[in-house]
């Protein structure tokens, strides 16, 4: 794992490794908040981002890493002048499904809203099963957000 700064001249990168224990998603959520505040995002958008980041980390901990103590979650936060990108990768002990079920599973405490929040709260999102194993969620928010039409129609992508 290298810690060299990103190739881009105007980007700054933070790398975080979390244990696969529920609750630690808040570390990534708080870290994203610190960077987004420094970048000047509005409080509303920061709240949206915090939920998306927490949900992506929870999924990595719970599903991708099966809460396995030896697996870790890698969170990369890359701040550029006009956007903040956050990628959350797990070790893929459970691979991401090709399609996500309809949100809300009655009878199971209506779980299943995480992916729905992730795809609706950030400007762009991409789900990938990594070639060397592991699942990754890449989320981007822009300081100048795209129009609503763009946001809702083009952001969600299933794993390739």
């Amino acid at each position: 794992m290298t810690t060299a700064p990103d190739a881009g001249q105007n980007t700054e990168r933070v790398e975080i490794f979390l244990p696969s224990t529920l609750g630690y998603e808040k570390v990534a959520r708080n870290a994203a908040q610190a960077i987004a505040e420094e970048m000047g995002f509005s409080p509303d958008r920061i709240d949206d981002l915090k939920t998306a980041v927490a949900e992506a980390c929870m999924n990595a901990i719970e599903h991708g890493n099966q809460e396995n103590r030896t697996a870790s979650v890698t969170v990369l936060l890359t701040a550029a002048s006009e956007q903040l990108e956050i990628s959350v990768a797990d070790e893929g002990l459970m691979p991401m499904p090709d399609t996500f079920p309809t949100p809300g599973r009655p009878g199971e405490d209506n779980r299943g809203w995480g992916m729905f929040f992730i795809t609706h709260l950030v400007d762009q999102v991409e789900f990938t099963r990594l070639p060397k194993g592991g699942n990754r969620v890449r989320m981007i928010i822009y300081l100048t957000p795209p129009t609503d039409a763009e946001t809702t129609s083009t952001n969600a992508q299933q794993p390739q």
Partner: protein
Amino acid sequence: MAKGDVLFRQEGTLGLLDFPRDVTAQTRETAYSAYNELARAKVRTLALNFDSTDYMNSAGIGLVISLVEDATQAGRKVFAFGLASHYRKLFNMVGLMERLSLAADEQEVKTKAAENS
């Protein structure tokens, strides 16, 4: 890593659930036992108090949906108060706003519950 329990209070036909700081999958057990006490007491109005809540994840929101569905099926009117604007937005996204009424605070809930009793 859980953060607090759901507590219940009953005032006549009004039942209140006081949610803790974190509302997550770990909140399930105390939420249901508190709700079940109020259901047994046959309250006609259910008020969800989120004054202390500052973290709610998708599992916590799913739990709230389940409680609201159960209360609605049992013919109870459901109110919520103390919700931060971000969580009002999330409640709206999952359709919860059509199944409950927002109140400004506990006082407003009590006034409205009196009309419903």
